[in-house]
């Protein structure tokens, strides 16, 4: 089993650290470059939602990202200590309405096989993401 755990500040300039870690894990899971790029995008969008909504733009709050491969599934967990998310209000928008913004949740739902928000204590939210790896065979 391969895994990582990192904590970054909620500064958009630091998101590339999470992108790089997720990309490496996808490579170890045997994903091709295109599939890997989509997973990286989905996790990145989830992080930007944390910064924009849970932390309302604050750049000094923690985002904890854990990633692991178990069998043929890639798991990503994102934790924050910001405003709690109401899962019933999380939905993608109508893409026929072409306008700037509002694509992040659509990207996550389109790319990942599971997206689930959970309450993780007194403050903050945990987001669980899963992807079944279609290209089998972990890489060393």
């Amino acid at each position, binding site marked *: 089993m391969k895994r990582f755990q990192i904590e970054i500040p909620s500064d958009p300039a630091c998101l590339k650290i999470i992108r790089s870690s997720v990309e490496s894990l996808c490579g170890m899971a045997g994903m091709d470059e295109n599939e890997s790029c989509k997973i990286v995008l989905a996790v*990145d969008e989830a992080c*930007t939602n944390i910064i924009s909504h849970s932390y309302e733009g604050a750049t000094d709050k923690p985002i904890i990202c854990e990633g692991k491969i178990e069998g043929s599934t890639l798991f990503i967990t994102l934790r924050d200590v910001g405003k709690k998310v109401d899962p019933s209000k999380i939905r993608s928008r109508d893409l026929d309405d*072409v*306008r*700037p913004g509002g*694509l992040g949740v659509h990207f996550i739902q389109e790319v990942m096989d599971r997206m689930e928000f959970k309450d993780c204590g007194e403050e903050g939210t945990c987001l669980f993401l899963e992807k079944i790896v279609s290209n089998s065979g972990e890489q060393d």
Partner: protein
Amino acid sequence: MEIETEDLGNGSLVRVSGEVDMSNSPTVRDSLMNLIAGKTPAIVVDLGRVIYMDSSGIATLVEGLQETTSYGGKFRIAGLTEKVKQVFELARLTDVFDIYPDAEQAKEGL
């Protein structure tokens, strides 16, 4: 991320390179809005050297397209890398933009 603008006479070419994400898409937006404020008749955005783009980058381009067409201007995208093309496809925007293989072809007929 780096961005540079070139005057084409009948429009402007905006070359973007590197990663476009939440941290720097406002810079891309500022460049486009400067051109739009001057009612630039045609804007070509060359993404041939962009290796990553998130939804904030896409939102910036959608806004650029809508603002440019609102005064009758042309807004063209050039040189989508495979990775960025995937993002356009996920957003179902490949038919919304005028997309050209490269900047040279995008500049034709402006």
